[in-house]
C-alpha cells in the first residue's frame, strides 16, 4: 500500500511543477496588459506605467519571474490581486466556501438520487422505469446547463416567484461567517427563517449543477449493477434462494461500488467546470465567477494562482479517489 502511494506521489510531483509552469505560461501569453487594464478608460502616464511594471516585477526575465513565483507559492504566498490589492489566498478563502457548499450539495443530490435510480433501473432492466430513467439521464447528460439554469430562473423565480433570483441568503439575515457554509451558519445563527432562506437560495443553483453528475452517476450505477448482477456468484446467490433485496443490497451493490466511487470522484472536475457556468448565471459569489472576472480583468496574479489552486484541488481529490480505490480493490496495487 505504501509503495503504491509513494508511486502515485512520485508521479504527481512533476505534474504539479508542470501545472505551475502551465499556469505561469498561460498568464504571460494572455494578450492585453494588466497595468493598462487597471487604468481603465483614462489611461496611465508612461512614467507611472514603467514604475508599476517594475514594481510588479514584470520587467524581469521570465525565468526569474517563475522561480520567484515558485518560491512564493512554496511559502504559501499566492500573491496580491492586481485589481483589488487583496491577497489572492484571502480572496480564495472568502469565496471558496460558497463554491464548495454549492458543489457539495449538488454532489449529494446527484448521489442520493443517482445511485438508487441506477440500482432500480438495473434491477428492473427493460421496464418502463428503466427506460424512463435512462431517457431522463441521457437528457440530463446532454443538457447545456447554462440554458437549463436560465429556464429554471425564468420559470421558478420569474413566473412562479417561488425561489429568490440570486444571492446566498435573504439580506435581512446578517451574521458573520463561521464555517462559510451558509446552510450551517444560518443554523448556528439561530435566527428563525434563516436556514429556510439559505435553502431556498441554494436550491436552483444546486439542481443545475447536479444535473450532469446525477445523469452520469445514474448511468454508471446501472451499468455497474448490470455487470455485477450477471456475475456467477450473484446467480448462485439467487439460485440459493436469497431474497432479491438481499442479493441486490448485500452482494451486488457492494461489488458495484468500486466503479461508482470512481465515477463520483471523477465528477469533481465536472463540478468545477459546471460551477463556472452556474455561478455566472446565478450571480453566485464563488470561485468560478471569480476566475471568469479575473480573466476578463487581466488580473494576472489571480488567474495564475487561481488556476494553480483549482488544479491542485482537482488533483488532490483524484489522488484520494485513487487511494480509496486501492483500499477497496487490493488487486490494483500490484500493477
Amino acid at each position, binding site marked *: 500500500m505504501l509503495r503504491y502511494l509513494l508511486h502515485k506521489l512520485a*508521479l504527481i510531483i*512533476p*505534474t504539479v511543477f*508542470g*501545472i505551475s509552469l*502551465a499556469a505561469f505560461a*498561460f498568464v504571460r*501569453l*494572455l*494578450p492585453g496588459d494588466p497595468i493598462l487594464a487597471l487604468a481603465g478608460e483614462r489611461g496611465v502616464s508612461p512614467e507611472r506605467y514603467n514604475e508599476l511594471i517594475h514594481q510588479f516585477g514584470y520587467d524581469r526575465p521570465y525565468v526569474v519571474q517563475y522561480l520567484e513565483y515558485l518560491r512564493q507559492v512554496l511559502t504559501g504566498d499566492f500573491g496580491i490581486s492586481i485589481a483589488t490589492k487583496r491577497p489572492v489566498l484571502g480572496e480564495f478563502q472568502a469565496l471558496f466556501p460558497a463554491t464548495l457548499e454549492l458543489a457539495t450539495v449538488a454532489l449529494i443530490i446527484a448521489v442520493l438520487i443517482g445511485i438508487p435510480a441506477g440500482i432500480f433501473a438495473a434491477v428492473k432492466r427493460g421496464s418502463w422505469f428503466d427506460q424512463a430513467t435512462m*431517457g431522463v439521464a*441521457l*437528457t440530463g*447528460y*446532454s*443538457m*447545456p446547463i*447554462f*440554458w*437549463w439554469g*436560465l*429556464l429554471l*430562473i*425564468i420559470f421558478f423565480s*420569474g413566473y412562479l416567484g417561488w425561489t429568490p433570483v440570486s444571492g446566498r441568503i435573504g439580506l435581512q439575515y446578517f451574521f458573520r461567517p463561521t464555517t462559510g457554509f451558509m446552510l450551517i451558519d444560518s443554523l448556528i445563527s439561530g435566527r428563525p427563517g434563516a436556514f429556510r432562506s439559505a435553502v431556498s437560495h441554494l436550491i436552483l443553483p444546486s439542481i443545475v449543477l447536479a444535473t450532469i453528475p446525477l445523469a452520469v452517476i445514474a448511468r454508471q450505477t446501472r*451499468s455497474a449493477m*448490470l*455487470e455485477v448482477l*450477471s456475475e456467477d456468484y450473484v446467480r448462485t446467490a439467487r439460485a440459493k434462494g436469497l431474497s432479491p433485496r438481499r442479493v441486490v443490497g448485500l452482494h451486488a451493490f457492494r461489488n458495484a461500488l468500486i466503479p461508482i466511487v470512481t465515477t463520483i470522484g471523477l465528477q469533481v*472536475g*465536472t463540478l*468545477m*467546470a*459546471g460551477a*463556472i*457556468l452556474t455561478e*455566472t448565471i446565478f450571480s453566485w459569489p464563488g470561485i468560478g465567477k471569480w*476566475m*471568469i472576472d479575473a*480573466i476578463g480583468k487581466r488580473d494576472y496574479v489571480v*488567474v495564475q494562482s487561481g*488556476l494553480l489552486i*483549482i*488544479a*491542485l484541488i*482537482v*488533483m488532490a481529490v*483524484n489522488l484520494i479517489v485513487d487511494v480509496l480505490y486501492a483500499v477497496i480493490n487490493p488487486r490494483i496495487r500490484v500493477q
Partner: protein
Amino acid sequence: MTDQSAGESASGALAAGTRRRALAEFWHYYSANTGAVIGLFVFAALVLMAIFAPLISPHLPQEQFRDSLLTPPAWQEGGKPMFLLGTDAVGRDILSRLIHGARYSLFIGLVVVVFALVSGIVLGILAGYFGGWVDALIMRVMDIILSFPSLLLALVLVAILGPGLFNAMLAIAIVLQPHFARLTRAAVMAEKNREYVTASRIAGASHLRLMLRTILPNCVAPLIVQATLSFSNAILEAAALGFLGMGAQPPIPEWGTMLATAREFILRAPWVVTFPGLAILITVLAINLVGDGLRDALDPKMKRS
C-alpha cells in the same frame, strides 16, 4: 511476387466478407436499441438540414427586418407567420439562424473530433509503443491538461488565442484530446506484447506499419465511442464558450453565441433564449443516443449482459 499479391487480394476478399458480416452483426446489435435508431435519424436530419440550410431556411440568417424587432413566435400573440420562431433583437429570423447554426455546431463537432482524435492517437501510440521517457513526458502533459477543469482551461486558452470560432475549436480539441491519447496508449500497451505483434515485428515490419496496420485496428471500438462522446462534448463546450462571449462572434449564428446575446431578453422575449438552447439539447441528445448505441454494439462485454 505474384504469389504474394494474389495472397493479399485473396485475404482482401476474405476481409471484405468478414467486414460485411461484421457490419451486419453490428447493425443487428445497434438496431436493437430503439433510442439509438431514433438518435441516428435525428442526427441524419440535422446533417441534411445543415447541408441544405440555404434551401430550407425561409430567410437569410443575417437579414435584418428592422420593422420586426423581437417578434414572438408565430403561434403567440403578436407573432407573424413569416417568422415561425420569432425574431431576435435586430429583427433576424430565429428559425433561419437556427438552421444555419446547425452547420456551425456540426462543423465544430467534426473538426474538434478529427483534431483531437488524430493528435490523441499519435501521442497515445508514441507513448504506448516507445515507453520510457517519451511515455512519461507525454502522459505527464496529458495529466496536466486533465487537472484543469475542461471549461476553465478552454476559457484561458481562448483568452490567449483571442475569441473566435476557430480558436474555440482549437482550445476544445486540446482539452479533449488527452482522453484519446490515454485510450490509445492503453490499447497499444495491451496489444504491444501480444504474439501477433511480436510475430510481425520479427517478420521485419517497420514501427510505423506495425502501429498503423496491426495495433490500431484493435482499439478502434473504444475510440469510436470516445469520438462520439467528444463530438457532443465539443458542441456543448463550444456553446458554453459562446455563451460566455469567448466562442464564435456575432453575427455568426452559432447557438451558444445566440444564447449569449439573447440573455438580456430572458424576461422580455423568452423565445430568443428558449429555441437556441433547445436546438443544442436536441443535437447533443441525438449524438449521445448514437454514442450509446455504438457502445452497446461495439462493446462485447455489454452484448453479453
